[in-house]
């Protein structure tokens, strides 16, 4: 049974029957997948219940040398498909030594033991200062609102996917009338990275 038919069945029969938040469980399984392109379902995929204007953030680990595809869908509210906004963010943490000199005051004496004043004794300590930069690796609003992001990474890394379900005005909004939530699937797929050269 194709994913489209499954999605239709869910939309027409399953979702209206019961509580929305409950039914969002595992909804990502009904997002259109890219099996034909060789991708397999990645279990870091996530499902959730959104109201319009919601933002959510998911942290995933991507392995070196693998190809990943990230996409979003709402099988329960197809009118939302194509409107999702998302960013792929990486936090880069760097540690640097920072030298700090502090002074303590000591009384100074002459050769006869008489106090002649005070002197400042410098003491240098090193501190490790960590700086974190939030680097936006991809922003679909800067890519004609593309709804999928396919990439390879040369290192294993941790990424944050920030998902935003925009407010919809006019006729499109009508589809959500009377329902507090729409179910959204964050689909992550992967396959072994494309090799180049004679091994390809």
């Amino acid at each position, binding site marked *: 049974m194709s994913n489209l038919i499954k999605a239709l069945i869910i939309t027409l029969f399953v979702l209206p029957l019961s509580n929305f*938040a409950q039914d969002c*469980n*595992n909804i990502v399984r009904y997002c259109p997948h890219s099996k034909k392109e060789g991708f*397999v379902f*990645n*279990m870091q995929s*996530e*499902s*959730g*219940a*959104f*109201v319009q204007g*919601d*933002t*959510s*953030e*998911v*942290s*995933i*680990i*991507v*392995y*070196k*040398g693998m*190809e990943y595809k990230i996409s979003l869908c709402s099988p329960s509210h197809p009118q939302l498909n194509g409107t999702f906004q998302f960013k792929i963010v*990486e*936090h*880069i*943490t*760097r540690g640097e030594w920072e030298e700090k000199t502090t002074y303590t005051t000591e009384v100074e004496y002459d050769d006869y033991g008489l106090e002649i004043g005070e002197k400042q004794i410098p003491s*240098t*300590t*090193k*501190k*490790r*200062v*960590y*700086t*974190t*930069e*939030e*680097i*936006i*690796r*991809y922003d679909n609003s800067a890519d004609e609102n593309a709804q999928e*992001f*396919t*990439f*390879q*990474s*040369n*290192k*294993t*890394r*941790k990424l*944050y996917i*920030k*998902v935003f379900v925009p407010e919809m005005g006019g006729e499109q909004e009508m589809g959500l009338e009377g329902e507090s939530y729409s179910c959204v699937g964050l689909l992550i797929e*992967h396959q*072994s990275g494309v090799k180049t050269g004679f091994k390809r």
Partner: protein
Amino acid sequence: MNNSFKIIAKATSVFSFAFIFMACQNTEVNTEKMEDMELEEQDVEAPQSDVDLSVTYQVPTPNELFTLFSDVEVAFDANLLNSTSNTEKYSSNKIKALNFGVYSTDLAFAANFGEATASLKYFSVIKNLGDELNVNNAFDQLVFDRIEQNIQANNSDSLFNLSNETYYNAYTYLKDNDRGSTLSLIVVGGWVESLYILTNLVDYEVDKELLSRIADQRLTLENLYGFMAEYQSDSDVSEIMASLLPIEEVLMNLESEESSIETGVNDNGTYNLDGGADFFMSQDEFNSLKEAVNALRNSIVESEI
């Protein structure tokens, strides 16, 4: 920020691991200096930070990790698997859940190498443990029929996919039924076993690629802590989190080398994420890690935790 990929929100907590989170900001590049600690010269200590529970932390499955075996030359070693006869020792739900994770990883390892007999044996033991843990949707007769068909057809790819599928079924069942504590224990058990297999397969002098993948597990550990943080009010979860500290101590203090961050676009519209940190592990660090992993893994499989 709403947290739509989560149903339950709980209080923020602090852990000792080197986990840096920065709240969502609108700026392209956001820089923040973490709280300093006065240190003696040459001392390096990882920064401390909070887990942000508005973020959903995901942990890759053992199956996904083991796909790296297509890039490195290692052989299957049945001696690394937890003996199926050990199940007799598992009486509490905590130890059952931990070893459900251990056996799931063993299954992924065996299936990855097309070890049909071992795979079937581990499918069986996981099913029994699953029944005892009331994770009863992961394995039905249909799955077992498919496993046997694939074993007869010598189809290792499908066997691997089936092991993946059963793990996912158990995972989603527990998650959807608000049994996050049990799920946390399963995920930890699986992760510890995968690290046990990797550290015992690697030859420090030879397998530099595998060694680098082991060092990468620091990232998975961060997300593992983030994942468990939501359920730490459960004493079983908080205890297992504490037992990870010796592993954390090694992984979070590895030396790193930075390269410049670049994001490239290919002609076909796909992207390349380049740059960032490479982590290096000395022989001593590797030995310490292996020792810590072996100790924790053995305490799990021997039901001494």
